[in-house]
């Protein structure tokens, strides 16, 4: 307790000051923005502000003039009469004792304190001068303030800071020592600690520009981009999954890598903005500019079956407006989604005018639970690049030839049709095992055909016949009812066959058997055509030994709510490559999931439509026109099969009476099945399309933005409801800010230009404030997402404005700006505090000392990896999956996704590359306030909890790092005391004090004794993590040193920047 005594004094002082602070003397000269606006905003604007729909008595207190303004005379009442307290109705109401009269009214649960009333009183007395909200006025460079200690000032930042300190009667802290500075700089510029060698070199470097050289060195490293990019990725809400409902993988990492590269090539912030908001609309956009537009593809999306498309699209646009507004403007526009903003001059019309920029996207309302929700850019590997570029032209050429062949084929087909017999103009009924239309429309009995004879079948339960079938009413399989076809299609894997049907499934369909002769009571035995998730597939299986030939479509192809024709053909080869899958007559790429079959696949169960023998029910799905052939249909037949009904009807009509569609059907049949040159061209096109799809499938993709043709527009959504459309609006920036130039493009490019326009009062301020926050822990405006009237005022407005102008006028040069910040005397201060500073500047708002705060989650993990020597500096690529406790993903989503931990290098990559599942982010990162990335975050929480201690003490990542630090140092040094000194140098980047050495050595000695007595314990501890401990080192000693390393990694000093 003794050690805390000096602070009891500080405590009492702080307490006194805090209490007196609550009743601080009212300043002599009242300023509206500084003194009055916060009171009005909090207590009055809700009813007397910008929202006209919610404005009581029509009176505004946010504006002086205009018919509703505070000065206006309305029915002989003036709310605020400058200089005349008695003539100001607002004052009378504020001070009224009558509960029906008093403002704010009791039902608002808001009251004005005596101090607040005093401020309002003096303001009215002094003339009630209004000011525009500070952040809506363009920033201006104020003249540098006069300071006493001129020698301290290294650059203009320091003049502004020092003026504030001198006014408060405080001294800046002395400059931090060189080791501290080197560590702080490395962490701030690269997110990683420096090496002891780098620190030593800096300590010894007596060149006058030693510090500037160090800054330049760190800034030149590619880790600079990783570190700066990480902050931006919070704002961009970057993640690796869709975010809502099933939360599957979505491929966006090229965007993440683009962000990192953009910082590394020091892309000016205005260009950085334009490319992300509208890179696709630039002339001849580069691949990188398209990838950049991923910014607004990082919003969370859903594919939940029952959701309503318009609702989803409204939600996506809402997120994009909200995010744009937080990130660039520091305005909480989200409030204006349902009504005019109550505190800031953002109308509901403004909100939807900005939404209009985002509303004509080609992006679907449901993400399909796939990695490549359109629109995407394909990024083929180097090996594929050439072909991927060439194939579209090849396809187009072959298509042209096919088109050119058509007139000739048409002539020939007319001749052929003149003499053709009806059975020649349909798929040959040779070897028809099952032909079952399922178009009865009622009842439980259905009639089909097998080998030329009619056969009747019955369903196993009541069948619901629904309108909207492919052919009349179609049966839906519900509550387990299905069709049992008896002993048909019972063959083995040496039998060529084809099986197909029209199918239609409901949203959220999980899968089931379409047609199956499959015994599933033990292992699978038989064959089937099925849906699994959103893919079609087929298999032939043998139970003994359990194995199968199995293929499923490579991409998700099942479209709920639509009739689709699916057909599988098989050549009897006993190989999975013998399968071909057709969808609506088109071949599909398949993935083989079982490639060899041993044993017989013949099944001793009936053929069923709508389920296997007992399971895999086609619940809720519909099926019509089931076919099973005991032969492999040709490609032409497969193409014609979905059109067969039309063909038959067309042929039956006299040639001169055929409609154009009927003529086309017949010609297609001829071209697909009988015309040699066309068949050859079709084959070529198919091969080329398959090649293209195959390249797309194996390429990396990244979500991009793309507009539909036509001018963007949106409707105001009344109360934010997707189905309550109000007036139509065209794209525009917020009306209370600088105007959107009339000639600006009416698309996102116009928005981007508006955001970075020189007369935008907010973008530069908001951006420099975020950068400041990255280094100093707190922004000059603490509420970095809200520069509106509910946000906090800047702690140093002149400094903020000076920085904003400086940044913009430097050409939005990010590296130059950070250089300015870190070379200031303000930044270079020691973090040491004093009781006086704790009293006068408890939050360090005045910057009376250097920044010291707990590092972000990613930095803490990277720090441990770096000092242990494990860290891989490999950059980019798909999200990595380092250590994670089991069953983290399983409890969320639909429980289907499993976390498959990486091995080797990927366990030790930088955390910015961690795979980010939004419904379940890495728990060791979440513990340290890493956001879920479901929504935009421009300011992280920074809290301290016991869970954090558990992570850095016991997470295998940290335990392994500690062991590897201990191991490499032990090999280097041998003697425990030397090892401890060396490890501490690595972690703390400074020599230990004798007192510290004593504590650490005692820990080592005690614990080594305990491990020596428990060799199994030592062994168990040393086996944490994938890497192996060196068996040649004495286990108890290594284990004890690893505990010491763990202790070092858990020091407050280590965890703080």
């Amino acid at each position, binding site marked *: 307790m003794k050690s*805390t005594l000096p*602070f*009891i004094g*500080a*405590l009492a002082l702080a*307490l006194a000051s*805090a209490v007196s602070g609550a009743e601080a003397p009212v300043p002599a000269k009242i300023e509206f923005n500084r003194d009055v606006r916060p009171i009005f905003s909090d207590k009055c604007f809700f009813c007397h502000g910008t929202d006209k729909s919610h404005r009581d008595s029509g009176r505004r207190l946010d504006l002086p003039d205009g018919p509703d303004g505070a000065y206006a005379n309305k029915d002989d009442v003036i709310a605020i009469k400058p200089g005349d307290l008695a003539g100001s109705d607002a004052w009378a109401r504020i001070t009224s004792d009558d509960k029906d009269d008093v403002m704010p009214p009791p039902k608002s*649960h808001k009251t004005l304190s005596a101090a607040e009333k005093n401020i309002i009183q003096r303001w009215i007395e002094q003339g009630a001068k209004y000011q525009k909200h500070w952040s809506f006025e363009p920033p201006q460079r104020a003249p540098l303030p006069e300071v006493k200690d001129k020698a301290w000032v290294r650059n203009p930042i320091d003049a502004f800071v020092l003026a504030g300190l001198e006014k408060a009667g405080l001294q800046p802290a002395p400059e931090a020592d060189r080791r501290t500075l080197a560590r702080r700089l490395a962490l701030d510029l690269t997110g990683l600690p420096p090496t002891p060698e780098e620190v030593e070199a800096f300590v010894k470097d007596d060149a006058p520009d030693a510090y500037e050289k160090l800054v330049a060195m760190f800034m030149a490293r590619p880790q600079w981009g990783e570190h700066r990019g990480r902050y931006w990725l919070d704002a961009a809400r970057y993640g690796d999954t869709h975010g*809502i409902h*099933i939360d599957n993988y979505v491929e966006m990492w090229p965007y993440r890598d683009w962000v990192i590269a953009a910082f590394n090539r020091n892309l000016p912030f205005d260009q950085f903005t334009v490319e992300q908001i509208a890179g696709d609309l630039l002339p001849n956009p580069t691949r990188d500019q398209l990838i950049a537009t991923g910014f607004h593809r990082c919003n969370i999306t*859903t594919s*939940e*079956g*029952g*959701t309503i498309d318009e609702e989803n699209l409204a939600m996506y646009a809402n997120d994009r407006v909200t995010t744009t507004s*937080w990130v660039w403007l520091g305005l909480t526009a*989200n*409030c204006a989604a349902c009504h005019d903003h109550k505190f800031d001059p953002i109308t509901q019309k403004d909100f939807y005018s900005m939404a209009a920029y985002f509303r004509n996207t080609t992006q679907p309302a449901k993400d399909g639970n796939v990695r490549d929700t359109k629109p995407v850019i394909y990024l083929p590997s180097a090996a594929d690049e050439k072909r991927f570029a060439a194939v579209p032209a090849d396809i187009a050429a072959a298509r042209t030839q096919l088109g050119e062949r058509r007139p000739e084929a048409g002539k020939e087909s007319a001749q052929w049709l003149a003499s053709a017999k009806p059975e020649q103009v349909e798929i040959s009924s040779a070897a028809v095992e099952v032909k079952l239309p399922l178009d009865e429309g009622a009842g439980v009995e259905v009639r089909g055909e097998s080998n030329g004879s009619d056969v009747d079948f019955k369903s196993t339960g*009541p069948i*619901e016949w*629904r309108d909207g079938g492919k052919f009349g009413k179609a049966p*839906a399989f519900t*509550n387990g009812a299905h069709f049992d076809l008896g002993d048909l299609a019972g063959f083995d894997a040496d039998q060529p066959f084809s099986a197909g049907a029209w199918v239609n499934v*409901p949203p959220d369909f999980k899968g089931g058997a379409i047609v199956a002769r499959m015994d599933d009571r033990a292992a699978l035995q038989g064959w089937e055509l099925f849906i699994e998730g959103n893919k079609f597939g087929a298999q032939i299986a043998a139970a003994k030994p359990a194995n199968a030939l199995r293929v499923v479509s490579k991409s998700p192809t099942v479209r*709920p709510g639509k009739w689709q024709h699916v057909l599988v053909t098989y050549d009897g080869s006993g190989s999975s490559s013998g399968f071909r899958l057709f969808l609506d007559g088109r071949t599909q790429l398949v993935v083989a999931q079982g490639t060899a079959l041993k044993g017989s696949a013949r099944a001793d169960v009936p053929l069923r439509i709508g389920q296997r023998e007992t399971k895999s029910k086609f619940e*809720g799905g519909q099926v019509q026109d089931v076919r099973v052939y005991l032969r492999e249909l040709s490609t032409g037949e497969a193409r014609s099969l979905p059109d067969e009904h039309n063909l038959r009807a067309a042929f039956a009509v006299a040639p001169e009476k055929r409609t154009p569609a009927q003529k086309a059907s017949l010609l297609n049949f001829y071209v697909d099945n009988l015309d040699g040159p066309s068949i050859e061209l079709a084959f070529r096109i198919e091969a080329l399309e398959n090649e293209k799809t195959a390249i797309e499938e194996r390429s990396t993709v990244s979500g991009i933005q793309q507009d539909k043709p036509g001018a963007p527009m949106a409707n105001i959504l009344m109360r934010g409801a997707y189905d309550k459309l109000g007036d139509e609006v065209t794209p525009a920036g917020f009306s209370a800010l600088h105007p959107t130039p009339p000639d600006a493009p009416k698309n996102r490019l116009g928005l981007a230009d508006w955001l970075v326009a020189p007369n935008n009062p907010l973008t530069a301020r908001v951006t420099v404030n975020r950068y400041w926050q990255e280094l100093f822990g707190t922004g000059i405006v603490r509420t970095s997402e809200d520069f*509106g009237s509910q946000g*906090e005022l800047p702690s140093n407005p002149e400094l903020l404005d000076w920085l904003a102008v400086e940044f913009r006028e430097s050409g939005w040069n990010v590296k130059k700006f950070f250089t300015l910040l870190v070379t200031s005397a303000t930044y270079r201060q020691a*973090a040491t*505090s004093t009781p006086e500073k*704790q009293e006068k500047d408890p939050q360090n708002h005045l910057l009376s000392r250097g920044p010291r*705060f*707990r590092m972000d989650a990613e930095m803490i993990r990277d720090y441990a990896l770096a000092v242990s020597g494990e860290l891989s500096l490999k950059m980019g690529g798909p999200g990595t999956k380092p250590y994670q406790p089991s*069953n983290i993903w399983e*409890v*969320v989503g*639909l429980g289907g996704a499993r976390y498959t931990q990486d091995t080797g290098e990927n366990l030790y990559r930088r955390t910015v590359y961690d795979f980010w599942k939004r*419904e379940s*982010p890495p728990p060791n990162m*979440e513990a340290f306030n890493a956001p*879920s990335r479901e929504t935009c975050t421009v300011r992280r929480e920074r809290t*301290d*909890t*016991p*869970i954090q*201690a*558990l992570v850095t*003490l*016991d997470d*295998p990542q940290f335990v392994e790092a500690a062991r590897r630090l201990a191991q490499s140092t032990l090999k280097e040094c041998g003697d425990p005391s030397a090892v401890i000194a060396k490890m501490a140098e690595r972690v703390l980047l400074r020599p230990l004090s004798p007192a*510290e050495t004593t504590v650490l050595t005692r820990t080592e000695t005690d614990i080594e004794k*305990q491990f020596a007595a428990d060799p199994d314990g030592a062994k*168990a*501890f040393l*086996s944490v993590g994938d890497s192996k401990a060196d068996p040649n080192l004495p286990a108890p000693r290594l*284990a004890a040193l690893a*505990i010491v390393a763990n*202790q070092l990694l858990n*020091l*407050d000093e280590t965890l703080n920047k």
Partner: protein
Amino acid sequence: MNCNSHLFANLPAETRLALTRRQLFAHGRNVLGAAALGSLLGGSWSRALGDAAPDRPALPHFPPKAKRVIYLHMVGGPSQMDLYDYKPEMVKMYDKDLPDSVRNGQRLTGMTSGQARFPIAPSKFTFSQAGQCGLWMNTELLPWTAKCVDDMAFIRSMHTDAINHEPAITEMQTGAMVAGRPCIGSWLSYGLGSMNANLPTFVVLVAKPSNSEQVQAISGKLWSAGFLPGEHAGVSFRSAGDPILFIGNSPGVTPGMRRRELDGLKELNEMAYQSVGDPETHTRIQQYEMAFRMQSSVPELTDLTQESARTYELYGEEARKPGSFANSVLMARRLSERGVRFVQIYHNNWDHHSNVGGRMPDQCRDVDQPTHALIQDLKERGMFEDTLVIWGGEFGRTIYSQGGLTHTNYGRDHHPRCFSMWMAGGGAKGGAIYGETDDFSYNVVKDPVHVHDFHATVLNLLGIDHERFTYKAQGLDYKLTGVEPATVVKGLIA
């Protein structure tokens, strides 16, 4: 007397201080570092600090009836007309179409919007009256629950805004359909703070249903702190491995070694404090000590071998099976006993688009006896009066069948316009039956209770005026109960 202090009244003084400081520093308000902080500042500390950082509100606003909550969420939306909303008239309406006048423009989900007919499916289960209150309920599948209806307040007139799972469950737990808002457990953790020194304030258990025919997605946002400080997020308790992530010492590390390590750490951190003077350093020391206490107390918490034969008689043998609903409920009781303020249990597979007949018995078997056991057990331990137990899903289901209909089997689609929930203990009015729906259990005809009204009522039982319980974020004073007026349902309060 400090309005917060009664929460800590039963804790040792040292713990009380630690907690106060923890809460104080939770917002990074590093004003003061001295140990005697709590007692020095007395009643108005949260205001006295006066920084713009969001303050802990002065709570509760009035004497609470409930001190803690156990919330049993049935994921997927249980069918109200098959459990608590008895509709005998429907038997005559079997397979008849739902009248348009009843549907009255209700939008449909994508699941049934293509359906040609909306044939009425009466419940296949046996209903009878239970308890003194005479509630008509499914006594066939809920015989145990039927024994304690006089302890429960039933709401048959719940309604919500969302018609699909993700937005509906998000609204039920956070008051809003969109991501990013704090859930109810986080609001209470923020508002009322902790009642113990060794365990989290808000714990989540995801129970495994015995039938998993059609489970629905749940996500971490259901226990997220949203814009509230991160320490108010729910801590997910796991049935396998460490109950709390990272709670176990690394293999081979004994508690003695850990103590040794922490002692050293404390000494070293104290030295750092002496040289730098950053009060946050003391917060960190405290967090490590609290982590150690958590590590020490969790094994005792999860050791069910201490439970008596009586416990398993009450909860059933299923309670021995880690991760089962019975086991989760028993764990919830143990957590509540040890001062955890809010325990949330999720039980899945209530999304009965098909096969109500086949699945409902499994669902009810999972929850029936354990629910009864929980109420009895709380009573026997004298905790029922101040523990609020909540049961319910995120929406109801349609009277018409989704898919084929027989007398014994049918499916039901989502339905937002009415559904049933109940509350027990903690000031809920035993035997109350609140609200009515029409004969089709399709529309509320009396005393509607919106999700926000429900939240307002829960907060009221915990001594909180929902109108005054706000948090400033993103430029707004957010409330759990949203911007539209919400009402405390007096009829549910004893």
